[in-house]
Each structure stands twice: as C-alpha cells, then as structure tokens.
C-alpha cells in the first residue's frame, strides 16, 4: 500500500457521483436540452443526508441494514482495483474472484431489501435483477480468467501491471467488449434497463429502491455510483493496459477515461432503445460467448 494507491481509491470514492451527471448531460446535449447540472448526484446525496426517513410498516431490520452492507461491499471491491501500473491498496493472488463476489454480496442484500417491502413491483424488479446478474457473472469471471491466462497473474494488480504482449491484443479487445456488456447490465443502463423510465412495471434497478428515503437512499445512490466506477475502471484498465504509464499519470488516465466512458454510455443511451426484457438474456449469453472466445484465443495463442 502506498500513497499512489490511496490516491487512486480516493479518486474513485470522490469522483464516482460525477458519472451519472455526465451521462445525463450527454443525453441532454443529444436531445437538444440544457439538462441538469453535472454535479446533480452530489446535490441529491447531500440533500438526502440531511433529511429524515419514512419506512414501510411491512419492512424489517433487513431493509434498514441492506444499504449499509451494500456500500461496505462495493467499497471493499474498490480497494482491490489498481489503476494500470499503480497497485491497488489491497492485492493478493485470487483477489479477482473476491472482486466479483463483492458485487454478489451487494446484490443479495439489495434484493432482500426489495423483497422486504412486500411490493409486487419491487419483487418483479428483484426477480429480473437476479436473473440478469446470474448470466452476467459467468461473463465477468470468464473474462477475468482470460486476463489471468494472458498475463499469468491471479491478482488484479498483477494483471494490469504486467504487459500481456501483442499476441493477446485481439483477446483483450474481446474481453473489453464482454466487460462493456456486463458493465451496462450490472449498472442498469440501456439496453438492459432504462434509468429514466417512469413506469414501475418496466424498471429493474430503480424499482428495487423505490421505498428508500433520506440517508438510506443517499447511501443507495452513492453505492450505485461506486459500482459504476468500479466496473467501469475494470474495463478502462483492460482497454489501456498496453499504455506504459506510471505513477500519478496512470491514476489520472483512469479517472479521465472514466469520464470518457460516461460520455460513451450517454451516447449509447441516446441512440439506442432498450431491449425487450426477453431479449436481455440473449445479450448476456452473447457476452458469455465473447468471453469464452477470448479465453480460447489466449489459450491457443499464448504460452
């Protein structure tokens, strides 16, 4: 652990709520609107932190505990993330598995909280969430396996500080594609979920947190931003792992690329419609297939 890795972690913790703002601003520009401030998520979070809360009578302590465990899980996942050659605060062999499973913990409690409200809408959202993430998980882990094979390392820090060699280029491109689909699905973006929808029946992530208010909802919003940062930074790390950047430049590169990634997500959301819910499993199965293909390539073409 050194100052650079702390800097990297702090950049994520502080800048993450910027991402939804940038996505929304991009969409507004595309639609010819002025749009909300880029810092809107920060304003929302601080406003909510000052408020009281309203709880449903149906809920139990699981509902109150869940946001806290979710936030702890996603912060824990972020401590495992390096920025290119800048090491992560925590790293050991196999931490890539832990990284994936931290999101599993977050999801378990988010879904439990949704079921705790006893609402049919939230049950429906929870059902879709677990279905899609069950398919996204193999894509993520097989993609990580391809990276591990290409670099011969079993920790995220090791993977991104080693150079994979030019023969792994096509495989890395395929892994990036799979991770981008996982990134969109896990963060409830178009084409999997539409964060702007106003109909409870069609929501996935938004409907699951419908009954939260006050500081709990602030935690939920922050957790979502962090999750977007964590999975996005993983993707950015794969994309730019060939750059010979060191020290603060690497951290700055990752943070800067995160902003570009948000613009890209904004563009995707502006030019694409959401997929029908029945088609989403096919998209995710496609991501798994891409990961398997990447893995086949690295197994065949690297020693």
């Amino acid at each position, binding site marked *: 652990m050194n100052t650079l890795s702390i800097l990297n972690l702090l950049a994520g913790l502080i800048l993450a709520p910027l991402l939804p703002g940038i996505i929304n601003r991009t969409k507004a520009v595309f639609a010819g609107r002025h749009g909300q401030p880029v810092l809107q998520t920060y304003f929302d979070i601080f406003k909510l932190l000052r408020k009281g*809360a309203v709880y449903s009578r149906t809920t139990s302590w699981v509902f109150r505990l869940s946001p*806290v465990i979710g936030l702890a899980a996603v912060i824990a996942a972020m401590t495992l993330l390096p920025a290119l050659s800048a090491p992560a605060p925590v790293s050991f062999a196999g931490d890539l598995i832990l990284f994936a499973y931290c999101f599993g913990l977050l999801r*378990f409690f988010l879904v439990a909280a949704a079921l705790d409200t006893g609402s049919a809408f939230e*049950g*429906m959202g929870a059902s879709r969430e677990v279905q899609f993430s069950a398919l996204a998980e*193999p894509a993520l882990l097989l993609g990580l*396996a391809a990276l591990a094979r290409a670099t011969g390392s*079993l920790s995220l820090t090791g993977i991104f500080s080693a150079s994979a060699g030019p023969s792994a280029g096509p495989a890395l491109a395929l892994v990036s594609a799979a991770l981008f689909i996982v990134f969109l699905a896990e963060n409830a973006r178009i084409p999997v979920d539409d964060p702007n929808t106003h109909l409870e029946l069609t929501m996935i992530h938004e409907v699951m947190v419908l009954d939260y208010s006050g500081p709990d909802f602030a935690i939920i919003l922050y957790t979502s931003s962090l999750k977007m940062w964590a999975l996005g930074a993983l993707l950015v790390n794969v994309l730019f792992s060939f750059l010979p950047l060191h020290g603060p430049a690497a951290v700055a590169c990752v943070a800067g690329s995160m902003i570009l990634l948000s613009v890209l997500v904004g563009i995707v959301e502006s030019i694409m419609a959401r997929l029908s819910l029945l088609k989403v499993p096919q998209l995710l199965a496609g991501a798994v297939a891409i990961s398997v293909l990447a893995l086949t390539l690295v197994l065949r073409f690297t020693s």
Partner: protein
Amino acid sequence: MSLLLLPLIIFFAGALLQMVFGRRVAVVRVAGPAITVAGALAGLIPVIRAFGGKSVTASLPWSMPFGSFSVEMDGLSALFALPILVICALAAVYGSEYLKSFEGKKNLAGFWFFFNVLAGSMLLVVTARNAILFLLAWEVMSLSSFFLVIFESEQEHARRAGWTYLVATHIGTAFLLVLFCMLGAQAGTLDFSGFSAAGMAPKFLSAAFLLAVIGFGTKAGFMPMHVWLPEAHPAAPSHVSAVMSGVMIKTGIYGLLRVLTHLGTPPAWWGWVLVAIGAASGILGIVFALSQHDIKRLLAYSSVENVGIITAGIGIGMLGMSYGNDAMMLLGFAGALLHVLNHSIFKSLLFLGAGSVLHAAATREIDRLGGLMKRTPFTGAAFLAGSVAICGLPPLNGFLGEFMIYLGSFKALTGSAAACPAAGVVVIAALALIGGLAAVCFTKAFGMIFLGEPRSDAAAHAHECGPAMRIPMLVLAALCVAVGLAGPFIPKLLIPAVQVLAGRQMTDGNFFAPTERLLTNISLFATGVLALSALLLVLRTRLLRNKPVSESVTWDCGYAAPTARMQYTASSYADPVVRLFKLFLQTRRKFVSPKGLFPEKSSFSSATPDFYRERMYRPAFNATEKFLTRFQWLQHGRLNLYILCIMVTLIVILVWKLR
C-alpha cells in the same frame, strides 16, 4: 480401552440401553439427546488428536471371516468425523424440543434408538479400516436413516420416500460390494491397509474407480443418482434432514476419497469424470432447487448442487495430481474438503431453520409463508446467515471453500505447469453460474419466507421456537461467521487430510505457506468488510438521530387497499430463470384463465417433478416390475410348498457339492 472405541460404545450401547430401560416419555426426552451429546464429546478427543498429526487406532478380536474390527482416525477420517459429531449433537439438542409435539403419539424411544445408531454408524463408516466392517457400518447407517425417514409413516408420502431411499441406497451398496470384492480378491485381504495399486492393470483400476463413483455417488447424490435425495430429505423430521443432508451424504464423498487413496496416481480422465459430474450436478442441482415450491425439497436439491461443487474440487485436485501440478492438487482437494465442512454447517442450519418454520407456521409451501422475520426473529436471522453463506458470499464461510476451488481452476489455466486448462475453464464457468443461480434460489427462499407480508393465516400467527431449538441454530450461524474469519487456522485442519489424499508427507513449508497466507488474506478482508459495515451503520444511525422518522405503507402507486396476496410470489420470482432452463426442468403449468364479462374463478399451478425420476428411473423400474410379475405364480402363499422349495434347493446344493 482405546479412545476411539469409547464414542462408538456410547452411541451403540447407549442406544440399546435406552431402548431397554428408558421407554418412559420423560426419560426418553432427556436420555436420547444426552447419549448423542456424550458420544459426540467423547468422539472429539480422537478427532483433535488426529488433527494434531497423531492417528488414533484400535482393534478388537472379531470372529467374522475375512473381517477384522480395526478402526483408525487419521487426518481424512477426522475431517469427516468432526462435522458428524458436531452436527449430530446439535441436531439432537434441537430434536429434544422439535419432537415434543409427537410425544404420546409416536414411539420416541425407537426414534432416539435409530438416531444414536445412525450417529455411531456414521462415525464407524469414516473410521473403519476393513471392508466387511465398512460395509456393515454402511448398511447400518442406511437402515437406521431409513427408519428415521419413515418416522411419520402414517403419511403416504413418507412411506413412499422411504421406499425410494431404501431401493436407491441398496443399488449403491451393490456396486460397493462388487468394488470391495474386486479389491479384496486382488489384494488377498479385506483390510484397507492391504489394498495397493502396485502391480494392478490400469483397466482393473479404472473399473474400480467407476464402481466407486457409482456406488458412493448414489449416497452422495451425484446427478443422475440423486433421485432419492429430494424425496427422502423432506420426509424426515427436520433435524434428521439436517443430519442426512449436512453430514450423511458426505460419507459418500469420504468413501470415494478413501478408495482413491488406494488406487494410486489417477489418470487424467478420472479427474475429468469428476469435473463433469461436479459441473452437471452443481448447475442442474441448483436449477432444480430454485424451481421447487417446498422449502425442504429446495434445500435437498441444493445439497445436490453443493456435492457437485465438492466433486468438481476433487476433480481439479485429481487432475493436479495426475499432471504433477502440486498447487492445483492442493487447492482442489483442500477446497473440496473445506466445502465439506462448510456445507455441513450451513445446510444443517438451513434445515433446522426450515424445521422451525414448519413448527411455527405448519407449512413447507414457500408461497404460503411470508413475513416471518417479525414473528420468528431468531430463526429469521439464522436463516439469513445460512442463506448468505450457502451463496458463497465473502464475509461468511461459504466463500472460502469455493474460493480455493476457483483458485485451483485458475492455477490450471495459468502458470508454467499449466496442465489441463480446459478443465479449469469448465469449473470456473460452472462455479460462476452456480453462484449466480444460488443467489436467485436463496434470495427466493429467505425473502419469500421471512420478508414481506404473511401470505396465509398460519404464517400470520406463527410463533418462535423455544431455546432448545434456538441454541443449535445460533451456534451454527455463529460458526458460519467464525469459520469465515478463521482463515489462518483452517489449513491446520485440512493439511493432514490432504496429505492422506496426496499419499505422501508434505512437510515442505513452501507448499502450505501460500495457502495459509491466502486464507489469512481472505479472512482479513472479510473482517474489513464487517468492520466497515459496522462503522457505516453507526454513521447512518447518527445521521438519523433527531430527524423525523415515520412509518407508512409500501409504495403501491396510489392503490388504496393493498393485500398480502398482491405480493410477488416465490413461483413468479423464480419463473424467468425456470423458463431459461425449461429444457431440463420440464415444468408443468396448469392455468385456468378467467372467462366472460364477469370473470369467475381462475387458477394457476406449476410443478417441477424430477426429470431423471420421470424419464429414466420410472420406465426402468416399470419394465423390471413387469418382468418380475411373470414369476408371481411362485408367490402363492402356501407354506408347505415354500418349505418344499427350500428343501429341494438344499438337496440340490448338497448333491452338487458332494458330487
């Protein structure tokens, strides 16, 4: 008298004495569980010795031909004996209260007799070192658990489940008989110590391996030999299900491992067979689990899934062994063994929780439950811990074993000694999918039973169980947390067993140190997650202090009169995934749609019967039955003719022998 004989004597002699002298209800209530707890405590002494590296052995004179009463507690036996003793003791304490409602209606003296015999025979199975003794203990274990399954024999489903179990377990034992006869004929003795792979033809060894996989796999619940499991486990009283699902099926894993230690270095395809069985059992097990409506059936199928994970780990370990990749072997075997321990903890916890739900609301139908967290808070919290653990999520114990198996598969992919990358890919993909589907299954089980509003009157008037049922659940839930945080100490439990499996002493510090460091890291990380959660919880509570906090109804889009029946049901929750796997599940749906301008009654029901039972076993057994009915004319009921048959047979044998 040896230390190892004492627990066996307590279990068996205690069971007999209690059957003879203590048949009064008040005596049985205390004596039955007390014998189990005493036997378990006595059994822990040799287990601890074996973990310390010193095997405990004992032998008694026995006049059985080819048999010898030799028992030994080595590292591998101790690893399986530990959960057997702990879970049996906890289940017995739980049972002392759970069975109260049966007092006066059922023969509880008989129940505790079979329960203690089951505990003793399981201990004997994992310590026996002679094939005759092993098979005898194996048979006693199967029969005593059969009598526990048909405890509620007045119900037809229990009798049918018991019958299925009895048939399945004996088909498995038949394969074991052949296996041990083969090994014995080759070695010239039926003592395990005489079995050796040296000088045996590879074909012979492979045949022995396949017999062991089928015979022991039937007990362990490998797909497609699992069909008895979802029938028998739900039918038994819940604490018996906890023992059967938590530890008894692991004797199958133990048997397979024990036989493997005598078959020498395995060829690669053995490892592949286990990887394939493991992946198939794991994925299909959890898919069948999440389509079930009955909580105990769901848990039984999830045992098939977890046995699949364990088997995949053993497969990875064997591949590592045959390719000489030590890291892969160590991680595969150690991960599988750790998952054996972990699964026994959380699966028994979940079965005890399910028993408490059944006790509280008198139904096992998930769709009739709901809102129990407020009515049975202890059971709810314990069930939550078990659910998080069984999904293999980080701060709890379930993650550790799966993590080691994952890492073993990653080792197969990377590194210089990359031996069998394809097997690594299969296991990684299977574990990832299983992880995702287990989350669906157990958010469904926990969420629909304990959260939301009660879906029936029985659930609304549920009541919490008493202390004798609470304490075992509390202990197991605490163990889920404790094992998750005890990473640095776990290798000490696993190393003796892995050394037995590897067939050599591995004192090399470089070999075990990485594993120890690895588990320490995970446990430190888990501690960090828990500490961070606690810190954030304090922060959140401080933020809400002096703020208006009020209660209201759940957001319902402005609808004025929501009822509990409008909640999402467990069936609809799991339905998208069930449809995704419809090829395997073949769920039957019956839907009567509302008709007319003033719609009257409509209904929907779905059921997912076991594919293999319907398509494989039922036709096979029907054909067998048809064939055998041709011989029914022999069964005429006339005793004098029966005796004549016996006489004729004896004379024929005599003549043939004296010829």
